[in-house]
């Protein structure tokens, strides 16, 4: 990270979903709550956290799949949070999404060439029919598929191949930034490495920036330059990948890191696993102050009164904890 120019800037992003209970009383699910961070050009930013922590929602609000409740998302310095329809279209081209489930993310009624070609059509990237076919073939080869696959339907492919089709669709519009939403978690372990290698290869060739959402800390350590840890809609720690694994500062991150399976049973026995009490609280009714205090072994009075800010503890190590560095 010598040359840190910001590509995506997220400020106080909130994504609330309205829910109604049986009596008709309104409530909000605070899926993403006041999230602020930057994504630098060319990096891979990992986003980890347990189920329901808002990782996917964050990725989706950034790309305007959902309309954010408040806050701003800037790409190349332009705030796209309020753009609609035609105005948003050129920015759609800059940001793409790779979905978690390669079985649900491809239209079963469309051939591979139509799935990839749709991206070209929408943004007018293919001049003629033959140009379109050439570009599709080129994209398929690029992601490691056979050009003969173009006329087949998604159900004729394996999970890994389907995910490659998803990647081809995403890079078809020549984006700058791609949100990879757990791109390998639905795949066989044997295929994961291949897909991750393909993603890394694409990044090198096309100068892509990734937001890599995952709950697999091993994969994140391998692929990401920086990692953000999410808990209940908040980013609790954001730091360079190696530093996170060596020196986690937030108690939640500490607990999370001890949960990585250890292949050596002898080391595993010696290891001090931090087991968190209870469940992740409901995002409808989150705890006051620090969201993690209900499960935090170090919680004090201040934690229930004041929301800790995400602050720099030096060297770009951001933590939101009142006792960062002291525990």
């Amino acid at each position, binding site marked *: 990270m010598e040359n840190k120019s910001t590509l995506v800037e997220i400020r106080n992003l909130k994504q609330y979903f309205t829910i109604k209970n049986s009596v008709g009383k309104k409530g909000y699910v605070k899926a993403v709550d006041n999230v602020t961070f930057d994504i630098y050009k060319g990096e891979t930013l990992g986003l980890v956290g347990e189920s329901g922590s808002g990782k996917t929602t964050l990725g*989706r609000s950034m*790309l305007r*799949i959902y309309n954010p409740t408040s806050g701003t998302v800037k790409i190349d310095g332009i705030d796209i949070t309020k753009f609609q329809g035609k105005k*948003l*279209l050129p920015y*759609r*081209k800059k*940001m*793409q*999404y790779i*979905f*978690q*489930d390669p079985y*649900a*993310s*491809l*239209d*079963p*009624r*469309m*051939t591979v060439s139509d799935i990839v070609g*749709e*991206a070209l059509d*929408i*943004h007018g990237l293919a001049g003629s029919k033959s140009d379109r076919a050439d570009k599709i073939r080129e994209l398929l080869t690029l992601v490691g598929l056979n050009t*003969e696959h*173009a*006329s*087949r*339907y998604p*159900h004729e492919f394996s999970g890994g191949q389907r995910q490659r089709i*998803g990647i081809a*669709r995403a890079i078809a*519009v020549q984006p700058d930034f791609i949100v990879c939403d757990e791109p390998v978690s639905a795949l066989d372990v044997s295929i994961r490495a291949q897909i991750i290698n393909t993603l890394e290869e694409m990044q090198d060739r096309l100068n892509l920036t990734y937001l890599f959402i995952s709950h697999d800390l091993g994969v994140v350590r391998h692929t990401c330059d920086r990692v953000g840890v999410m808990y209940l809609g908040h980013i609790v720690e954001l730091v360079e990948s190696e530093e996170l694994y060596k020196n986690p500062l937030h108690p939640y991150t500490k607990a999370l890191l001890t949960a990585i399976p250890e292949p050596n049973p002898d080391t595993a026995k010696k290891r001090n696993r931090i087991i968190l009490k209870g469940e992740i609280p409901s995002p409808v009714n989150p705890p006051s102050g620090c969201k993690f205090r209900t499960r935090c072994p170090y919680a004090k009075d201040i934690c229930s009164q004041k929301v800790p800010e995400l602050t720099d503890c030096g060297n770009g190590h951001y933590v939101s904890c009142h006792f960062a560095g002291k525990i």
Partner: protein
Amino acid sequence: MNTINDTKVLEKNLFLPATDEEKATAEIMRPSVSYWRDAWNRLRANKVATGALVVIILIILAAIIGPIISPYSYEQIIEGQENLKPSMQHIFGTDSLGRDLFTRTMIGARISLAVGVVAAIMISIIGIIYGAISGFFGGWVDNIMMRIVDIVYSVPTILIVILLQVVLKKPIDSYIKSGHAPAFLNSMGVGLISIFLVMALLYWVDMARIVRGQILALKEQEYVLAAKVLGASNRSIIFKHLIPNCIGQIIVVTTLKIPEAIFTESFLSFIGLGVSSPMASLGSLSQTALKGIYSFPYMLIFPAAAISVIILSFNLFGDGLRDALDPRMKK
């Protein structure tokens, strides 16, 4: 004897890496076929559906060509040949006025099929678009649109059909007489026009509900989100992703609507509100035959059998078509 230990037999040149051409021949490749070509192949493999399709085509051909090549015209009264039994001269016999029943049944099938198909297409177009918009936009749009459907649904259909027919008869009649009406309206007659109008007004609600339900389930699918991320317009999401993915349901409902429309038309003709004499539909033929059912049962058997065969074939064909159009059924 060549044993495995006999290393001399295993020459080195047997173990050269394969060239690209050799690899290409080893690769098993299915020729790429289009979606509809594929569906057609699968439909042909289904014997029942193919049989039903053949029957439908035969009936359609008979309904179109039959009356033209028949030696008798459907309104031609042959004096002295009333109430004849089926014979070589009159395959289905003749009716009480001495008209050839075979020709009249073919004309009746023509009218009934036309009513069924045209009504089903109208119902489908209206229902699909209405249901898709309602399901896709959701929220208050959906709420209002579905309440309208509920209202239309709660109306006693047959009663409205009869009322509308009576009310519409006069304006349509004067429109035709004014001379501005296109020729096809003229030949259809008031009865048929009001049947179409009524079906277009009232019968689309089933289709709208089914399509809406499908769209509600489909619009949360990730491939729809993917299209959104790519920047696809609502219109192209609805027509390129959502509707093609409920085509199976749409076809089943449409094929069920064809016999339903034929039934409604028959019923209306039966109570004298459908096609007017001397024009015949399968319904009006059955009604006329009912008067002499004890003496001349064959007069009822032929049109009734025609109705049954048409409806059965459409049901079986629709079923086969649903399987054929679903790529996931591919073996």
